[in-house]
């Protein structure tokens, strides 16, 4: 009875969809599914297949087939292994530094700063996102180059920067990805009911104990969410290493170098960062922190 009156109403399409849940589902999902399956999954799958192909040494053309050579090389050649470990170390360092900076900043913004300062800091965190990625890398390059700002500024104190090297790559990547950690962490801390802080100090906990026992456990999901960004974006990056790393090579550097010369090797090596991220998420799931995301 009531559906009849709706179908006569002024919104024929919505009432039609209301009565046909399957049509509704199809119209909702067609576009995103085309994107996810057609573009995303298929291209990843092609990448995986390419990793088992090889290159004809005479013609330099990619030959379809099946060989494990590329993977054997990645896991046996010392340069590849070292680069994998170096990249993992850089990505973990970037993530750790982001967490160490984001938690105190988030607590300060959410619980101590007055509303004006809080808004200012929120803008200050997001502001770097407005600038282009390459712009920020070049900015870091200019700061840490031989005659750059850092050396000039620190010269009176007799301090010289390390030059383009792994620490500067870590610094640059931290600078690039910090907002992706700071924002979820800050939001999560803001959502902690204020009286949990009161309750903790009421029961004798000083500030640090409250942070350690109450704040951190409650924001683990936000830290995981942020670290998926900082970790995976760092794993895949190669421009930071190229422009601020000196001779530092990351997985991305090698993929970039092989992308035309030897696509199958590039494809095989691309599996390493993916594997790292999958392992990372599995470890996170083991600790039970994904269930609360």
């Amino acid at each position, binding site marked *: 009875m009531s559906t009849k009156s709706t179908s006569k109403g002024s919104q024929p399409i919505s009432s039609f969809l209301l009565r046909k849940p399957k049509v509704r589902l199809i119209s909702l999902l067609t576009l995103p599914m085309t994107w996810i399956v057609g573009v995303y999954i298929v291209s990843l799958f092609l990448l995986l297949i390419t990793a088992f192909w090889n290159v004809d040494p005479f013609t330099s053309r990619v030959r379809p087939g099946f060989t494990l050579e590329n993977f054997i090389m990645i896991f046996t050649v010392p340069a590849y292994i070292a680069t994998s470990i170096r990249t993992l170390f850089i990505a973990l360092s970037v993530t750790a530094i982001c967490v160490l900076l984001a938690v105190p900043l988030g607590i300060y913004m959410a619980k101590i700063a007055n509303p004006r300062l809080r808004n200012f800091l929120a803008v200050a965190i997001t502001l770097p996102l407005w600038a282009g990625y390459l712009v920020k890398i070049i900015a870091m390059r200019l700061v840490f180059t031989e005659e750059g700002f850092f050396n000039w500024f620190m010269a009176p104190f007799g301090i010289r920067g390390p030059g383009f090297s792994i620490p500067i790559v870590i610094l640059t990547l931290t600078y690039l990805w910090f907002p992706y950690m700071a924002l979820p962490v800050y939001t999560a801390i803001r959502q902690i*009911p204020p009286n949990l802080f*009161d*309750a903790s*100090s*009421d029961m*004798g*906990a000083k500030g640090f104990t409250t942070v350690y026992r109450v704040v951190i456990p*409650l924001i683990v999901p936000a830290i995981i969410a942020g670290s998926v960004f900082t970790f995976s974006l760092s794993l895949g990056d190669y421009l930071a290493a190229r422009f601020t790393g000196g001779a530092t090579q990351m997985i991305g550097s090698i993929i970039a170098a092989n992308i035309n010369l030897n696509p199958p090797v590039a494809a095989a090596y691309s599996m390493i960062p993916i594997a790292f991220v999958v392992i990372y998420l599995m470890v996170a799931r083991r600790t039970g922190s994904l269930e609360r995301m």
Partner: protein
Amino acid sequence: MALIEIRNLTKSFGNLKAVDDISLDIESGEFITLLGPSGSGKTTVLRMIAGFEDPDAGLIKLNGEDITHLPPFDRDVNTVFQDYALFPHMSVQENVEYGLRTRKVPKAERAKQAIAAIASVKLEETVDRLPHQLSGGQRQRIALARALVLRPRVLLLDEPLGALDRQLREEMQVELKKIQRDAGITFVFVTHDQEEAMRMSDRIVVFNSGRIEQVGTPEQVYEEPRTNFVAGFLGTANIFTADMASKLLGTSSTVSIRPERIRLQALGTKIDKSETSIVGTIHEAAFVGANTIYIIETEFGMKLTVRKTNTELLGQDDSFVAGDQVMAVWRNSHVAQIPV
């Protein structure tokens, strides 16, 4: 010496004076209730005793020691929060152990004490559950156990029963009172529910607009209200302003008379000489179960509320209906003089 001495305590939030120069003594072992409407400053006083708010001026002493500006973790008081403030990521037992853990009580000992505290609120079976798996009443009791396990000198309770339904609230009122008596801990209880305050308290402190209106036993604040506000806030009161009282009763001060102390009689019937009566018309007669509430309109636009207990079936006694002219009668000794 009082256990807690509060002297000239003042606290403002921006332009709002939340607490305005109050002084109060709280005795050891008593159940004292801070009662008032929302925004009257009662919770702010509680939060200053707990250490969550820093007073602008004044002094708070606990057991003779000045604690005015001490942080919460250095005070021998604990709080039960309005919405319980249980840690959502910790089990019931971990919640109750929290305070013992910050005090570095050894593991076995703190588990023993926590389980005893949880047992004292009859929730042993919940030790491994998370707070969101408990009902409101259970959370409330765990919050209580979490504070009591620390054996504070003073337990502060900030509207702890506000979120419970009526029946559960009444059960908890009895239970809280029993716990307080058994443990011998001083309870400072904040509520806006006057019935709850009267049911549980040894003394009631009535707050209004950041000031204390009156301090006294439940009987005192009910029977001898010192201000119009107190008379009106605790139960219902028929307040005759000084002007009205002189016109209608021939006295010159403000007085209050409770609805249940007034009875209605037919016009022309006799009254005792220790009694007073005024004539009026019944404006409204509302049957509310145990009672019938009459609104009587008298001369000069004064309206009286009268409550008759329905000891008989409706219509089987001399009940009145709207429009009847009646005498409202009360004993002179039941009139409370309001000094202010």
